């Protein structure tokens, strides 16, 4: 069972309190009707499925109930960093150390 650092509760909490929410940073288009079928398909279904650092959403359902984002290595399942919804995806190449301090893998 993974431990996940909730950026709202500011503590590590057990995986069973959380639900996985799929890939992060896929914003719903402001005007879906302006998208053609291919673009809409991409929004709905196409995912990076990254082997390595993956930006993804989690929800601390049985905790603060908030959605938040995380960068997790899908090869090791190690969380590099978690951050609040709305914050930009951290650039881990520049801030690996700081990120790890926050992520507490």
């Amino acid at each position, binding site marked *: *069972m*993974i431990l996940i650092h909730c950026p709202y509760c500011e503590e590590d909490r057990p*995986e*069973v309190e959380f*639900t*996985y929410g*799929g*890939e992060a940073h896929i914003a719903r288009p402001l005007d879906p009707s302006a998208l053609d*079928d*291919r673009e*809409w*398909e*991409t929004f*709905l*279904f*196409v*995912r*990076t*499925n*990254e*082997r390595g650092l*993956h930006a*993804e959403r989690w929800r601390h359902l049985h905790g603060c109930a908030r959605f938040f984002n995380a960068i*997790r290595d*899908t*090869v*090791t*399942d190690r969380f590099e960093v978690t951050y609040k919804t709305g914050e930009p995806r951290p650039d881990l190449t520049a801030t690996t150390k700081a990120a790890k301090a926050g992520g507490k893998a």
Partner: protein
Amino acid sequence: MKRFSGLNLFAEALRGHTGWPEHWPDKEPKKAYDVIIVGAGGHGLGAAYYLASKYGVRNVAVIEKGWLGGGNAGRNTTIIRSNYLYDESAHLFDHAVKLWDGLSQELNYNVMYSKRGVLMLAHNVHDVQSFKRHIHANRLNGVDNEWLTPEECKAYCPPLDISPNARHPVIGGALQRRGGIARHDSVAWGYARGAVAHGVDIIQNCAVTGIRRGPDGAVLGVETEKGFIGAKKVGVSAAGNTSVVMKMAGLDFPLESYPLQALVSEPVKPIVPCVVMSNTVHAYISQSDKGELVIGAGTDQYVSYSQRGALHILEHTLAAICEIMPIFTRMRMLRSWGGIVDVTPDRSPILGKTPVPGLYVNCGWGTGGFKATPGAADLLAYTIAHDAPHAINAPFHLDRFRTGRLIDEAAAAAVAH
């Protein structure tokens, strides 16, 4: 290839089995092939076998980053069935089941296909409605599937608890008698041996690192750890790693890879005579020829390539098994392991051409790939050989996610694969 038979086994026994040749030789890649299959699992090896044996394409290589059969082919719970709801799925899986029948003889390799029946348990009215819908659709599609009362379920599978005061009482079941299990490793090995006998090269420990395309966008071959290998046609059959390979060709795919755990018990004398699945409690069980209870768990919730599952999934799975078969609480889990399954948005596979000319794909089988092995392999081979899908796999085109013609068995039935 030396023929396998009881007679030859007898003759070899007398001379210390010194005459058995290797199943497959280690090959260094040639400069180019007519077709390269990426991924030496059952599906990939099978596709090479059918290309060479059935569709006349003999200059074929299968390239594998690890050892052949080391992915989901060797990590699954070996369930075979075809009682799917939609015409498209029923035809697809029944194509496979028909090939399973007689596969041992065709390959001259006993894959131990055992038609012991797959029994799916209904625990509530919604299950019954859904199962009956399957049964009627299957009947009109020529696929066997029949309704059993709780007492008939118990008679067919004595370890079941059909007591009405269970938390999830069994109120009936759908049985496909032609369903069953097979020996997973043997399937990969049998196809490998068969493919080699038809001239296919199998190249293990050779990861693909890139897909080279010409100025027109068409495939020219693959970059690998052992250098560039040319081929105008490349078929990708890489299960959980499909997204990774597709990215090499510049394609983003509607796929996500999840960990899926399974476990076996210590071997015991025959006790579970068939495959039992319960979607409501989330577990399935069969017994291997070795005597181990083979038990499947659900997927973990997050995307992962770690092949490292979580303990709480096993806890839930074994609680579920003991809910439907309470006699097993004293049995012991011997081994658990994780695989990576690639899942599409409608939980049906993608099997056909891709937007890149010369690149073909067979992926997205989720938790249900083993049962489809011969069918998927044959259809991938057909599609590559003809540069066009067979009628059976035509509906499983990538384009359905754009047009909306999804084949969503799970949404339709809430039945796990």
